């Protein structure tokens, strides 16, 4: 396995024509025990990520944290400003007339929750990442258009340049290509 080629080889890419084909292939890859494999598609394919490995997204949790943080920031900022730092009698309302704080509390909650969803998604995905080995094969340009790819990385413990290639060819792809590093 530890041939010199694995140092220059990122992995092997199999190209498919339809989401159904790539999903079936991904199931076979997972069943064969490959762990360091990923699929690439021009639009989200239901179940593809789950097939390739147990996957729980932490984004909902991040968004909840963002919402709570934003709402607390909003609420306590208003309490500090209009109750503690500069108490201000408006229309005889009590100093901490909290119903009037709700709109800004809500807006800031939404704002920070949205920041969490947006930046959290990119951070967890490791983006922006301008260079990635999969871009080294010219055909990969079609992954953002009409083709579906499965890449098994050479870092996988089961990876063997010959056997993995034979395995991928058995999945009836359009082509199997080496992805240089």
């Amino acid at each position, binding site marked *: 396995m530890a041939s010199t080629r694995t140092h220059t080889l990122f992995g092997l890419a199999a190209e498919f024509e*339809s989401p159904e084909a790539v999903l079936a292939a991904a199931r076979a890859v997972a069943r064969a025990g490959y762990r360091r494999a990923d699929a690439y598609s021009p*639009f989200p*394919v239901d179940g593809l990520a789950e097939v390739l490995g147990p996957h729980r997204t932490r984004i909902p949790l991040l968004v909840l944290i963002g919402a709570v943080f934003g709402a607390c920031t909003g609420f306590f900022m208003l309490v500090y400003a209009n109750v503690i730092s500069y108490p201000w009698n408006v229309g005889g309302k009590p100093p901490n*007339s909290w119903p009037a704080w709700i709109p800004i509390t809500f807006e800031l909650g939404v704002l920070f929750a949205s920041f969490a969803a947006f930046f959290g*998604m990119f951070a967890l995905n490791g983006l922006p990442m*301008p260079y990635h080995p999969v*871009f080294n094969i010219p055909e990969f340009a079609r992954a*953002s258009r009409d083709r579906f790819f499965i890449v098994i990385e050479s870092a996988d413990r089961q990876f063997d340049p010959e056997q993995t290639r034979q395995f991928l060819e058995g999945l009836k792809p359009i082509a199997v290509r080496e992805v240089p590093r």
Partner: protein
Amino acid sequence: MTTVPLEQVEREEHPVIEPGHTYASVTEKITDVVLRRPPGMAWWVGLMIGMGLLGLFAIAVTYLVVKGIGIWGVNIPVAWGFAIVNFVWWIGIGHAGTFISAMLLLMRQHWRTSINRFAEAMTLFAVMCAGLFPLLHLGRIWRFYYLFPYPNPMQLWPQFRSPLVWDVFAVSTYFTVSLLFWYLGLVPDLATLRDRARNRAVRMIYGIFALGWRGSARHWRRYQSAYLLLGGLAAPLVVSVHSIVGMDFAAAVVPGWHTTIFPPYFVAGAIFSGFAMVLTLAIPMRWAFGLQDFITIRHIDNCGKLLLVTGLIVAYGYSAELFMGWYSGDSYEMYMNLNRALGPYRWAYWTLILCNVITPQFLWIRAVRQSIPLMFVIALIVQLGMWMERFVIVITSLHRDFMPGAWGVYYPTFWDYATLLGTIGLFFTGFLLFAKFLPVISISEVRELVHASDGGRHEPGEFHPSYVH
């Protein structure tokens, strides 16, 4: 994972997407507008008019900063003139974009797919135009940061019990969230543009903004989760923003403003005018860019239905105002209603009734909803009507409030009109540049639509919207 039956696409006569498309053909058709097709005469003429009006805006704003807001028609008693009318009008127009992208997303209305991208862009430019008016109205625009709570040597804070301060937070949050939502949706399409570009410089530029998106299954999973959550956040946000705009008025004691129906009725009016703007943009755009396969009669028809529903809610709002004026028994409230219908600004009131209550009734007729020229005309009429509505609310209420000795009449000046036309120029310039340089339709979502109604290769009848797990 749930599957949603795709009833409408097959059963109704007009499909959401014309049949025969493949993943590659939709990609080419939409990216060609950006990368291959020259923009054409209509685009250049539109851009010239837009830039011309934008020049007028620059002059109007420069003169305003030099001379102060005395160049406008505002004075006592009408201290809120065109600026606030235009602010409410523009921000209302923006709301349909968010409604389409967020509310219809959550309701699994997949026909939204081919109109959400440009509707979101419409929101961004409309909110930009809207946000400028309160700032210009400040008089000393260079002091705009006084609106935000920041530690300052005067040791003062904004008065947080005022809806006007809520508005600062609502509008700035709304703009920010709309921008994030729009950009998030664009990222996979920017990657497509990067991969399709022939010119190296163009590829680099789109590549930078695509952030290295490569369509990994794990990335898509998080992407969908984030997109759905942002939709869920934007939906209540859009309701809150225009409710707060409504409260700007409702919190005052002026007859015609001081009413509890304002928040919901403002939200409905906002979506009403916004759908009119969606139609105003979609109809020329599908023709100019050859996108009739994606923005079909079905979309025009559905927008017509929403226009009718929101129009009826707005009509209910008008009648509730009349009823409450009478039912309150308050002489000022009753006079305000009479003054609207019979006073010096009666032409504005009757224009609004004609545009917003009578015109939408034609939308009950299917043939009208499916006629492109008629829909375009109705959309323009509704936008005029919604502008008139805000004019009636702001000006008619202020010019005669309680003391007859304090009554007055408001006359807009040339600079009021110049500023309004100028923001229309800003809006169209921005929108036309967007339409040329970015995909006006979400390509990755249209591919999903192709997958659902799949060009003959699979059994139709099942739709898997990506954002529903």
